[in-house]
């Protein structure tokens, strides 16, 4: 039984949200935020160990379902939520000292941060396709006020765009869910069980193919808006650039994964019903388009956070493409790339956050010579950039290499497109980050020492996983990949 572990996992962020709603304006709110995030992470570790030991399980009247796939995302989500809370402690204090944030805004930030973690964990662990939708919408609702936290005209515009676009997207996903239920109730009968994924998975061969086909299109477009797939991506760079950096880090590193997980759950059902590669082809198309368009937009960016947001679109496109190809190797690579991208991208955002604070601007042409004033921020940014660009020996290299070799084998015509896009992205990002790190400095010192432990912890993990993958971890990924088929 995993009821206890699961309760702890969901209760920790809920309690954190309530406590911080009450005490969020105290001076120790940041520490409380980290503490509650740590509790969540600890519960996630215990849950993961339990599931790895005992296999997939349902809990609470089958309303929750944990298997190798989502427990890995739960662990990743809880870990990055914890490290981001460590990063945000000094980061938000510096923002406050610079006068960009007031205490009531921080109060809002802390309690919403916990509730956002909660909604992502619910979306990951629930067995009910309807509740996934509710939790995904809740994730938007909790972050939208965080995107506009600075109350600048630009941040308001970004938040409004985020709210409206994701609202529309998620509404389409709801229509997909309704269609799924429409098909399911003909097989499973009316009532509670017809939206439970485990039940749907058992009868997926009997679900009406025409309905499921349409349902998947709506689900992919709907959740795809959240993933940031082109052409539904336009909210993503704005929200990442205008929101506070810890929010950019969790949006990029976590929310996109959770939305992708919802799509994958749907894909398993559609594949079972149709018996064709329809869902995979759609995902490959969207993925490829995202990779190419994001790569082309990368070189035009002037704002550093905006640039790395486009890099997130590129990587999510690559992961979606790999999931679309299907098969054990590509799915394995996609899961690995998901992990690597989350760890690396959040590390980059941490480093970028401090670099921006030191330079006082997000415009890349005005951020220069980070290495002189702060070697740790400079090296963090440089190494993170190397990692995200897929340089060996970092883990992103391994997963990208696997994805491209599989593409070469199964869909040779996509290889040149992928390679050119990755090349363009490399040139664009490297060319822009290099003068930021080296060169004459324009930066100033900060009132609080920055938290760079999370940056190097993430990068070290990515490095280790790139050099050596422990057998149990590889086995775990393989099992998760087998679940997705």
């Amino acid at each position, binding site marked *: 039984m995993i009821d206890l572990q699961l309760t702890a996992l969901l209760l920790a962020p809920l309690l954190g949200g309530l406590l911080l709603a009450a005490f969020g304006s105290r001076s120790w709110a940041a520490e409380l935020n980290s503490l509650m995030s740590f509790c969540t992470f600890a519960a996630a570790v215990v849950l993961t160990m339990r599931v790895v030991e005992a296999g997939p399980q349902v809990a609470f009247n089958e309303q929750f379902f944990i298997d190798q796939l989502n427990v890995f995302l739960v662990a990743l989500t809880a870990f990055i939520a914890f490290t981001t809370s460590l990063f945000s402690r000094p980061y938000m204090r510096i923002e406050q000292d610079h006068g960009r944030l007031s205490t009531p805004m921080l109060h809002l930030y802390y309690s919403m941060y916990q509730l956002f973690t909660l909604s992502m964990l619910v979306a990951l662990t629930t067995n009910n396709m309807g509740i996934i939708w509710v939790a995904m919408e809740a994730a938007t609702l909790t972050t939208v006020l965080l995107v506009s936290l600075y109350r600048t005209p630009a941040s308001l*515009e970004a938040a409004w765009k985020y709210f*409206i676009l994701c609202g529309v997207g998620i*509404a389409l996903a709801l229509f997909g869910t309704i269609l799924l239920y*429409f098909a399911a109730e003909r097989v499973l009968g009316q009532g509670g069980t017809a939206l439970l994924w485990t039940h749907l998975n058992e009868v997926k061969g009997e679900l009406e193919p025409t309905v499921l086909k349409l349902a998947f299109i709506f689900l992919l477009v709907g959740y795809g808006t959240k993933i940031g797939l082109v052409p539904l991506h336009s909210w993503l760079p704005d929200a990442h650039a205008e929101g506070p950096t810890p929010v950019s880090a969790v949006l990029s590193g976590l929310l996109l994964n959770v939305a992708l997980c919802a799509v994958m759950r749907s894909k398993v059902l559609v594949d079972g019903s149709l018996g064709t590669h329809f869902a995979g082809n759609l995902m490959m198309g969207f993925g490829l388009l995202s990779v190419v368009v994001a790569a082309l937009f990368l070189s035009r960016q002037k704002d550093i956070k905006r640039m790395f947001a486009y890099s997130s679109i590129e990587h999510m496109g690559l992961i979606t493409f790999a999931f679309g190809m299907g098969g054990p190797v590509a799915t394995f690579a996609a899961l690995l790339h998901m992990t690597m991208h989350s760890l690396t991208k959040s590390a980059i955002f941490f480093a970028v956050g401090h670099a921006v604070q030191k330079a006082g601007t997000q415009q890349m042409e005005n951020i220069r010579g980070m290495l002189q004033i702060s070697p740790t921020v400079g090296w963090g940014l440089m190494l993170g950039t190397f990692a995200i660009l897929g340089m060996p020996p970092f883990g992103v290299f391994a997963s990208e290499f696997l994805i491209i070799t599989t593409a070469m084998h199964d869909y040779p015509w996509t290889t040149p497109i992928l390679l050119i896009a990755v090349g363009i992205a490399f040139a664009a990002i490297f060319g822009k980050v290099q003068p930021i790190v080296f060169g004459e400095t324009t930066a100033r010192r900060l009132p609080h020492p920055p938290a760079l432990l999370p940056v190097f912890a993430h990068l070290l993990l990515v490095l280790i996983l790139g050099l050596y993958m422990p057998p149990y971890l590889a086995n775990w990924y393989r099992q998760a990949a087998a679940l997705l088929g």
Partner: protein
Amino acid sequence: MTYTIQFINLLAAILLLIVFAMLSQRRILSLINLFAWQGLVLSVSTFVVAYSTAQSHLYYSAALTLLLKVLVLPWLLHRLIRKLNVRWDVETLINIPTTMLVGIALVIFAFNLAAPISQLSEGITRGLIGIALASVLLSLLMMLTRRKAISQVVGFLAMENGLFFAATSATHGMPLVVELGIALDVLVATFIFGIFFFQIRETFDSLDITHMEKLKDD
């Protein structure tokens, strides 16, 4: 039984008509009233489905819809426009005839898309998915053509209504826990929209979202 089917079909037609009316309505106050009417139609149709299929949990849905979409949300919106002092605002819409024509095209598209599904469903639900999808797409069109933040939000809520109609009438209702979750999300979203209105007005001195088209890639 045949009467209830006829009645639900009639309600579906009214629903679609109201969406078209919203699409062409320029006064914000009337727009909110139309939204309340749409909620009422939705609530009645849910009630009729509940009665004809003898599903008790749909009665709760009908009551919830009545409470949330006919009373609470319109009241909140009325309060908002009074506080923001935009009660009598009239929007300048360009080209209502063109919008209407696009709307008709969308309805045809929606019916075509839903045709294979309509053939599967028996009796009561025939054709309703098409109407629901059409009203979702029309609400989407409304969000695209409007330039005032409040009308966009009403479009968003109307879209939610179309989805709810699909859920209750075409599939006899989603599980109650899901419906409650959706209702909660919509309510919270409306509150957040309200907060946004004040923030936008404070920053831009107007609720026109044309001021908010600065973020671009160049």
